[in-house]
């Protein structure tokens, strides 16, 4: 009886800590306020939508205020519009739909403003600067040995019992290396032996896209957490060192590519914008509004002069990389464009309509179009020598020449084939069930092995 009462007492005492029901001693924007804003406000008050001219995704924009003036008056919570709106004491009551903020969240915001609206715990200083040097652009194979991963960590970041759909897959243009997006990590495999070469942590969330740099020395991953945050990261594969992180998106990055000179990352996602970020300092260079639906694909031309972007409504736009000016629009797909790939002068697009289309970029015209995968073409890629590899809802991956002649059709995968690349003579393809299989070009489409994608085995 006594014991039971004691237990009960300790449980009750523990309860407040468990439910985070207390307002912290020292409230700061980064530690306490931003998480609240991200959940409740940033769907509309972000740099892209900027409802009422208000951006609440970072400290300086929040203090800058809206079209109507400042929303936070440090030290004066009672007359700060931000607090009045979330409290509902003044119109417009925020958030306009869904649940109102909890009393505790409101108390956190109130205390934050009252205690002069601190930015962070101890003025942590600017984040670690990116450090990417411009690379020489070359259309041909770089001299020297192909860039292979050095002695990288092979420790998995997250072990899961099941695997997820393979949505991020890329082959190095010059080395037998294949990169696969996992959970909060990017896995590098040897394309011929299927041996795990290294694990690159991506704590920002789920990688939705991986790409190698034109020279094969860097690997890029974009992704994030759905409806919450989006980032693109860049690693040097020889050392596994992360050399840049760009983007401050409020939703997953769905499409991204690194310019051949490695100075710029173009990215896009559900906010329909095409955004260009500097890899040197992570700054936003420009943001282009043109697409009418989610941006689903992005590709730089090998010479770096153009970048192509595509959307879920079938639109493809080619931009001048240097100025960001719109160069041309390529109408043709009536439904979603799922992937883009670039060769000099030639752009390939994969459509939900099942087709692969080759576009003459100079003329802005369709050069060749064929039905590649009934039900929807999910992915298309070029090899440096001009072969085309694609896959789709018919569960197979195919290799084509530029006339649309199929050179190889793999045996069906276990579910929709989502990504396929050609690394040397090896086709690596991943499907919806999470299985990644490898096929030899010469082998008539029989798989010779599969990649142990499940990070349970990647983990030590």
């Amino acid at each position, binding site marked *: 009886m006594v014991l039971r009462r004691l237990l009960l007492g300790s449980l009750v005492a523990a309860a407040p800590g468990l439910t985070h029901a207390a307002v912290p001693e020292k409230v700061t924007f980064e530690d306490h306020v931003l998480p609240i804003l991200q959940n*409740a406000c940033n769907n509309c008050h972000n740099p892209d939508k900027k409802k009422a001219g208000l951006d609440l995704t970072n400290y300086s924009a929040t203090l800058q205020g809206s079209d109507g003036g400042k929303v936070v008056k440090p030290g004066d919570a009672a007359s700060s519009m931000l607090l009045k709106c979330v409290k509902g004491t003044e119109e417009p009551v925020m958030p306009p739909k869904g649940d109102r903020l909890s009393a505790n969240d409101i108390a956190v915001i109130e205390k934050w403003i009252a205690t002069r609206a601190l930015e962070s715990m101890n003025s942590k200083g600017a984040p670690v600067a990116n450090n990417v040097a411009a690379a020489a652009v070359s259309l041909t194979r770089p001299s020297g040995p192909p860039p292979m991963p050095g002695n990288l960590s092979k420790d998995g970041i997250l072990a899961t019992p*099941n695997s997820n759909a393979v949505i991020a897959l890329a082959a190095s243009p010059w080395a037998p290396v294949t990169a696969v997006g996992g959970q909060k990590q990017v896995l590098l495999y040897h394309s011929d032996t299927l041996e795990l070469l290294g694990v690159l942590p991506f704590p920002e969330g789920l990688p*939705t896209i991986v790409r190698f740099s034109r020279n094969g020395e860097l690997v890029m991953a974009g992704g994030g957490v*759905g*409806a919450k945050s989006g980032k693109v990261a860049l690693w040097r594969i020889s050392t596994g060192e992360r050399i840049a992180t760009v983007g401050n998106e409020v939703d997953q990055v*769905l499409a991204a590519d690194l310019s051949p000179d490695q100075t710029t990352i173009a990215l896009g996602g559900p906010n329909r914008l095409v955004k260009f970020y500097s890899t040197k300092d992570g700054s936003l260079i420009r943001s282009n509004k043109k697409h009418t*639906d989610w941006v689903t694909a992005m590709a730089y031309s090998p010479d770096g002069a153009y970048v192509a972007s595509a959307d879920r409504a079938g639109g493809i736009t080619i931009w001048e990389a240097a100025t960001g000016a719109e160069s041309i629009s390529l109408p043709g797909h009536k439904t979603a464009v799922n992937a883009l790939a670039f060769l000099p002068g030639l752009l390939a697009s994969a459509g939900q309509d099942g087709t692969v289309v080759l576009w003459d970029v100079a003329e802005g015209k369709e050069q060749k179009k064929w039905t590649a995968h009934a039900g929807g073409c999910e992915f298309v890629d070029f090899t440096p020598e001009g072969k085309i590899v694609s896959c789709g809802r018919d569960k197979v991956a195919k290799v084509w020449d530029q006339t649309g002649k199929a050179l190889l059709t793999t045996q069906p995968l276990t579910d*929709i084939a989502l990504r396929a690349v050609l690394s040397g003579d090896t086709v690596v393809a991943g499907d919806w069930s999470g299985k990644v299989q490898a096929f030899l070009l010469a082998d008539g489409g029989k798989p010779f092995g599969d990649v142990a994608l499940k990070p349970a085995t990647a983990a030590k």
Partner: protein
Amino acid sequence: MTRSNLFYSSLSVGLLSLAPSLLQGAPVLEVFPADAHLRSKLDRQAFVVRVIQDNGIHLDVTSDAKLTLEDPSKAVLTKNEVAPKAEGSTKIKVQWKNLSASVPLTVEKPDFEPTVSFRKDVMPVFMKAECNRCHGAARGQDGFKLSLWGFDPDADYFRITREQPGRRVNLAVPEESLLLTKSDGEAAHTGGKRFEKGSPLYHTMLRWLKAGAPDDPKDLVQLKSVEITPGSLVLEGPEQKFRMNVRANYADGSTRDVTSTALFLSNNEGTAKVDAEGVLTTGLRGEAFVMARYGSFTVGVPVIVLPKNLKFEWPKVEERNEIDKLVNAKLRNMRMSPSEFCDDLTFLRRAYIDITGTLPPLERVIAFRDDKDAAKREKLVDELLKQPGFIDLWTLKWADLLQIRTINNQSYNKTVQLYHNWLRDQMLSGVPLNQLAAKLLTATGSNIENPAATFYSLELDPIRVTEDAAQAMLGIRIQCAQCHNHPFDRWSMSDYRGFMAFFMQVGRKAGEDPREKIIYNAGGGEAVHPVGGKAVPPKFPGGEEPDVKGKDRREVLAQWLADPSNPWFAKHMANLVWAQLMGVGIVSPVDDIRISNPASNQPLLDYLAKRLVEYNFDIRKLAKEITLSATYHRSTRSNETNELDTRNYAKATIRRMRAEVLLDAIADASGNSAKHTGLSQGMRAVEVADAKKTNYFMTTFGRATRDNVCARDEVSPTLSQALHLLTGDTVEGNMKAGNLVAKLLTSGKKPTEVMQELYLRVIGRPPTTEEASALEALFSDEAQTKATLEDIQWALLNSKEFIFNH
């Protein structure tokens, strides 16, 4: 002990069913559902325990009742919910105060753990959390589309798992799936938080994701029906609570307690609001219909809410026939007593307008007033049912249903006139309504030789033919189900196509006469389901798929419709007759029979339908039974208990005369037999065949355009109506043409006599003493006598007492 219990309960059940009146006053204990079947480890069944108190008010005593298992080795009881333990059967005994009951329970496969099913488990989550309301919009919401109220699970499965691979579900880390993080408030969601992380809804979704988001096997057991219990409630308000139980029945005979995953709605939140768990809370006095939606089914419970401790004593009232018993039974539950009977002259005028669409002529008013026969009201009804006005009125009502009108280059004056004449002939010869409907549905050949064939030449689009036929003949609006399952009724897209399939093989070709259309059975043509693109075989609404091979599908449909056992037709027709006589339908509007628009008195509607069938679909006989009920003879005046009543017939409903009838009435009351503006010489407004032939008066007073099938019995009063009566040419014009006052004065009548006659002609009663003395004072100026009387006539024609039937 057990045996004596059993004996006792069977005895009380026997007594209850044999002689309810004997037990009136004794409280009754009931348990819902009345049985329970657990067929897997995960199955649960909760119970609701109700006591009907001696004052008729229901109590939810679930929390206070003692529930025990007869054999505790078979199951586990937690509060009011039972979970399986071991194979076998037992009973749950329920005890509250000195009342008891027991519920049989069977347990099968108590160790079987079924895999989570997308259709059975996950789809209900989208409904309950109302995901598929916003995302069910035609273009989805923020790029994500679900089928509205879940009519297309296949498409929903595809969209969630494979439309945007990698985006909506994360099978490696299921908790991070956008499907969950958007729903539980973790990620930004325009629709806000839909359920709590860790809630049962969350767990269902998570369990499915953890299993790898599997699709269902092709032979997944189908949901057959859904029941909500208790079936009806009489509660006190405000703040009385009562929990509901919803159970799903599957094709394999299994059941499932779906109370926690059903979506609850109330059609009158002020009287009874219902929370997400199915617990309703009463409010103000009134009636509400509380519904539960699960799968493609909507089921509901009528709830009466009375003020607390209401003092009410049911008066001794005369019940002349079954109608009165059924009306009074409802009134008793509502704690309303019926109004007194109306006087003879009010009855005379009411019966004339309701039955014949005309005013009682002067001589008839006087004769009826002076008639001392106790059976004069019954004799009057018999007389009126034989009058041509009755035929004209019902021809007019059917012409509305059938949308008889001219349409440029499609429907011509000649064919419309023939169609209308044909319809009137049917009414005149007393063709049973079901035969009339069958004749229309199967009409074949030239619409000049067989005018009924115009039924298929007014609308050419099978969609319109389907929807119009459903609304006109069955009283069902199935339009919604063309594009998605009906959100508030039982109709699915398949039901829609199944009904439409009967009309897909109607062939139409031109005849020799350019106005002629020849209708034939084309023998080919299918109704294609927009989801999946398959042809849907003909299926009766709410019924089976008939064999139509080698037959004219319309013949098969007509046979079904005309069959006395048809579940819709007789009810719809009986409701039409009732609404015409009582001013408001038991289902109202009359052409919107729908689960979420319940009958105000279902037993009454069922009875009337049964009678109509027994009368071989003869309107006259049903109309007679209704008009002879005490209910029909009620005054419009309310008493203190029935002031609020609008739909329970505690008092007579005051209703405006419909446009055509009112126009004829103005002419008759003015003594004018000349032509109506815009209509043919000598033609009464009710006789006009073509809805496009109208005049300002009729349009203003809401003459049905018949462009769509909507019954337009009620037209809200407008300013232009009032102004037209006051200043327009209809009243003035008819008075001038009738020249009644002058004629009466010329015939030698004294001003007082003329005034008396005007009263009797226009509003069917003599002036009251006060009215008479006030008006007689005006006759002192003899030079102005005619003008004064005409002013009186004008004032009477503009009075509410004239314009309304009461």
